[in-house]
């Protein structure tokens, strides 16, 4: 090992000692700093979790979703529209879907009811694999339902093996439970009830020959926007949503929200930077004497600067690890409960969202830029001031 490197290791060693000697002062900076990082990181991780959830949800969404708008509101789509789209080249499959929300007054829960012909959906077979027990009912079979874990819990509390739902006119329909979705798919299926399309139509009293929306599957991903444009021209009263567009909208919304939150956090950051500057600037007489003694004993200004550099890096690094870990625990195990009031309305996807981010380098880089960089910048000049204490300070009579 060359002596320059060893010198730095020695200085690092000395820094650790001196941090430990002033542990009270350093601990206060560390805790405040970790707190700031905790705030920044929590928001970042929440955003990341929401983005991932949206991505996962969108993976099952077809390339194009077709809704009909009337007077600016969504209406049911006549199945005859499907015939009009047949002519467009490149469409692989069109699947009508009947779906809606069902409010269960007894338990106060909101279910998502969905009915579609899964034989015609590419990847529809995979739904069998998503079941914890039971089977997907035969596509022709009426009166059977597949439910998510959340629905099952409510059902078990009520007792009984039949799922009873009410039509809008309060007449009752009952379904047999054919299968239950696996807990692993909870994020998508927890509140889901999958029915035969005719059953779903019957439940919501949607006239036959109508669907809530049409799912358009496209064979070649490159042709999506061309096909979407053709559909829009052909059926001017529809809204054509492509998957990439939905994803981009989510991104912009999440990005905007987290950006807005970051701006709010900037106040906390500024306060902390001022605090750090202040702590770093105030040199006690003992510290001045120590620096001057070191200088007389042959330390250069650059060596003192190296102490300050390591000090900053160690404090910032430790605070970073602490803050990020605390934020992860906060977001994953406590569902970001500190931010609950702010987070209401964030859950574009699902009200009872489980936040489970898998952070990557980019997230940490963002957190780093929003916390450690300003701190390091704020301590450079005080560090130099302390390093430029003249050597003669420790001599008597001067």
């Amino acid at each position, binding site marked *: 090992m*060359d*002596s*320059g*490197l*060893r*010198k730095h290791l*020695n*200085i690092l*060693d*000395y820094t650790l*000692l001196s941090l430990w*000697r002033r542990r009270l002062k350093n601990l206060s900076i560390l805790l405040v700093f970790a707190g700031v990082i905790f705030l920044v990181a929590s928001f970042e991780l929440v955003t990341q979790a929401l983005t991932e959830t949206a991505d996962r949800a969108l993976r099952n969404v077809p390339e194009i979703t077709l809704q009909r708008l009337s007077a600016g509101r969504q209406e049911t789509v006549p199945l005859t529209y499907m015939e009009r789209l047949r002519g467009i080249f490149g469409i692989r499959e069109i699947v009508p879907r009947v779906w809606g929300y069902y409010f269960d007054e007894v338990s106060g829960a909101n279910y998502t009811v969905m009915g579609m012909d899964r034989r015609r959906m590419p990847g529809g077979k995979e739904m069998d694999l998503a079941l914890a027990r039971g089977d997907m009912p035969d596509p022709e079979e009426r009166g059977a339902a597949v439910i998510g874990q959340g629905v099952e819990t409510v059902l078990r509390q009520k007792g009984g093996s039949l799922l009873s739902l009410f039509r809008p006119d309060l007449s009752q329909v009952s379904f047999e439970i054919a299968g239950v979705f696996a807990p692993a798919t909870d994020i998508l299926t927890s509140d889901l009830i999958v029915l035969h399309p005719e059953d779903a139509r019957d439940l919501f009293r949607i006239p036959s020959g109508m669907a809530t929306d049409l799912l358009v599957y496209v064979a070649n991903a490159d042709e999506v926007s061309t096909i979407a444009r053709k559909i829009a021209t052909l059926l001017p009263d529809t809204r054509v949503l492509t998957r990439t567009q939905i994803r981009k909208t989510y991104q912009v919304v999440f990005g905007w929200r987290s950006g807005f939150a970051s701006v709010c956090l900037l106040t906390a950051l500024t306060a902390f930077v001022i605090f750090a500057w202040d702590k770093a600037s105030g040199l006690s007489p003992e510290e001045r*004497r*120590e620096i001057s*003694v*070191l*200088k*007389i*004993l*042959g*330390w*250069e*200004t*650059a*060596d003192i600067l190296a102490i300050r550099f390591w000090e900053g890096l160690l404090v910032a690094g430790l605070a970073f690890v602490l803050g990020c870990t605390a934020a992860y625990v906060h977001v994953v195990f406590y569902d970001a409960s500190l931010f609950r009031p702010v987070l209401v309305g964030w859950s574009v996807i699902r009200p009872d969202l489980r936040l489970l981010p898998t952070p990557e380098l980019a997230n940490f880089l963002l957190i780093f830029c929003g916390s450690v960089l300003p701190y390091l910048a704020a301590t450079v000049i005080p560090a130099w001031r302390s390093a430029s204490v*003249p*050597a*003669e300070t*420790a*001599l*008597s*009579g*001067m």
Partner: protein
Amino acid sequence: MLIELDRVSKTYNQGLPNEVAAVREVTLAIADNAMTCLRGASGCGKSTLLAIIGCVFQPTSGRVTVAGKQLARLPDRFLALHRRQYIGFIFQRFNVLPALTVQENIVLPLIPLGLTPQQMRERAGILMERFGIVHRRAFPAGQISGGELQRVAIARALVNDPPLILADEPTAHLDSRLSNEFMDCLAELKAAGKTIILTSHDPLVTGHRAVDQVIDMQDGRIHVS
């Protein structure tokens, strides 16, 4: 290592109303392997002169030559490199850092030299052995007695094995027993080949048998006797 000062002056706060000429036109040569004492009342400029010899700062004018090398006008960084290699300092009140342990204090001058921790411990160990403070190795320096403190200070000045040792009023805060002990220790170092320069107005120091030369200072000027 011959030290030559040629018309060296040091003025504090130059150009300001509180300007002070601490050292005026001092010309001086200090021989190798000798013990020289700068004597004078406080404020006569002896500490300033010692600091100039020790390259702690530069003189306002004049030349300082150590072993043939011109040191005045060198940037701060090179003065530090010079101090690190050639000079051992013993301060008034010793300036031992009270929060560090005895051993940590002694190795301070070695840290920028880039030695391994093993080498640093060994060197400190030898010196602590020699001065009888091994049992205090891990004690905070703030908790040891005055005599031990003095030995820590000497050990620290010797740890980088410098040819030149400077001591600024080393006995000012010691009783006569400790002062004598200290001077005997310096005498040993001189016998071992070191060059020693100290400042004092203590007759116990200036009258010590090992002192080769006493230089009187008054108002920043010198009178060799």
